[in-house]
């Protein structure tokens, strides 16, 4: 029989879970609202907001903009962040610590401060409203996440395996490709995922450097919700929620398979 304290603990966990999930769970019914209103609870049922998302060029372009930017950011930030992680973990302890602190600043500095700085520079360099501008800004924001994820796997990586590979005839690049990279791959992949989400999700800097010709999805959501109470945002939210859930479940399943082999 479970003890009293276990029951209390269970209830408490349930409460926390509800608290964490509630905003998400509110969005789903709202996306099927029969009326053009963001009121909760919704009235009636319809798919029209989903139809609107897929047919309105405002929504589809901003979605594909976000996707393109986030994919490029994921690649660029993962490469740079992984190299940085190597630099940090293989430099002398003090140099490494200093480098790390420096590289992580974008995560610590308030987003608005960064946004203002980036905006000022972009005005001069004509990067406002360009894919390049978005990629540069978001890459900077994403690098710390990659750095942290990769560094964590480098910490548990046994460097003596590199020595062994070298004695067996592998040059440095081959050692990296055949031994180091496969073993830190989980860290690199989760870094890439973080980088993707950092960019895909990013709103503060995006609001500053956006233009009528280049909007990302968060910017579009924000302007839609401030302009008119359109439940399409709820439909978008639900779709994103589904997509991320699928990715995470796939990741978990993959992880379980790997553990069994």
């Amino acid at each position, binding site marked *: 029989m479970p003890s009293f304290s276990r029951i209390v603990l269970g209830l408490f966990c349930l409460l926390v879970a509800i608290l964490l999930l509630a905003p998400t769970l509110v969005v789903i019914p709202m996306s099927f609202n029969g009326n053009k209103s963001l009121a909760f609870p919704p009235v009636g049922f319809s798919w029209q907001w989903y139809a609107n998302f897929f047919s309105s060029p405002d929504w589809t372009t901003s979605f594909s903009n976000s996707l393109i930017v986030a994919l490029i950011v994921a690649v660029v930030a993962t490469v740079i962040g992984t190299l940085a992680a190597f630099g940090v973990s293989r430099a002398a302890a003090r140099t490494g610590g200093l480098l790390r602190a420096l590289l992580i600043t974008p995560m610590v500095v308030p987003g608005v401060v960064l946004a203002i700085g980036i905006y000022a520079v972009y005005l001069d360099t004509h990067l406002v409203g360009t894919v390049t501008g978005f990629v540069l800004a978001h890459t900077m924001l994403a690098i710390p996440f990659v750095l942290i994820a990769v560094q964590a796997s480098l910490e548990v990586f*046994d460097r*003596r*395996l590199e*020595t*062994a*590979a*070298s*004695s*067996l*005839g*592998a*040059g440095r690049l*081959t*050692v990296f490709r*055949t*031994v180091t990279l*496969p*073993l830190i791959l989980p860290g690199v992949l989760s870094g890439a995922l973080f980088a993707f989400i950092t960019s895909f999700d990013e709103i503060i800097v995006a609001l500053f450097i956006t233009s009528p010709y280049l909007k990302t999805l968060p910017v579009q959501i924000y302007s839609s919700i401030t302009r008119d109470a359109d439940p399409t945002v709820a439909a978008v939210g639900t779709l994103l929620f589904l997509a991320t859930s699928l990715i995470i479940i796939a990741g978990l399943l993959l992880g379980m398979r790997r553990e069994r*082999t």
Partner: protein
Amino acid sequence: MHASQPSTGAAIEIRKASKRYGAFTALNDIDLDIRPGEFMTLLGPSGSGKTTTLNLIAGFTDITSGTLEIGGKSVTGLPSHKRNIGVVFQHYALFPHMTVGKNVAYPLALRGIKGDERAKRVRRALDMVKMADFAHRYPSELSGGQQQRVALARALVFDPPLLLMDEPLGALDKKLREWLQLEIKRIHRELGTTFVYVTHDQEEALVLSDRIAVFNGGRIEQIGTGRELYDTPATLFVGRFIGESTVLRGSAEVSGDETAMVIGGQRVFAHGRLADGARPVILLRPERVALKRVGADVVAGENRLTGTIAEAIYLGSGSKYEVRLSDGTTAVARSPLGAADFVIGDTVDVTFLRSDLILLPDDASADVTLT
């Protein structure tokens, strides 16, 4: 350089090699010649420079000064992956993301050996270490001893002329260690590859080696066969590191070609003399010592010191005694089965022949390092 060469052992020639880390000298001017196909063991206490020497040969660290030739060619500046040397580490260092078969195939793949030839050689290497049934397992599914056998197969599968092993059995228990020692010895005999083996275990060194180089504080104290090191150690350190021994210290009187040493009022005579200025000590091997009842007949050339039995240990094959001498020194004696028995507290004569004594210059470092 190419892997399909038949493996014949490579010679190693190290001349005046030093390795410094900043102000610290890890290896101080060592000379070491290893013959083709030889089993050479680097023996010494922890921190004496054995791994450093191995790392220099493998190319994992650069030599600070001196020369190093492998197979008659200088390897200065040649990176480790171009040296074609097999290395076995204490910590196995198998790739955890590859099966046993893939691990062993790894050096072959790097050398462009493909298909049937690769499969055949992997199989032969795994057969040699009796691990052929485990080719599809991952390293994490193997015991330490099994992992080390796979590591050995991986280090030998490309037929290197030289195999380096750094305390490969250090993490295994005694039974397994003894069995694997014999396996390694068998493999060495079958292949003709030069083996350089690092250990701090003198018994292991004696079991395995053709010759042993004894390291102490970044220097080589002596190089020789186990028998040479045991019977004629060059230094007190070597004498004490290899096998059991009793060290007798006292005031020495040199007359002609004979040294007499006064120990607790009794005189011990030894053949030979040391160079002027050196303070002599006498090293005694326990099986060269015979314990006799006080007053027994004196044999020609025999030394005797009187003492009291402090410890008597029955070993099955004989007995081991510790005898407290009058000056406080403890002498160790081993007597064969059938020799007279003594009990703790008996007063005995510790006797030994002059010719069995080993006269050596005293060396304080020999005591400190052996704790």
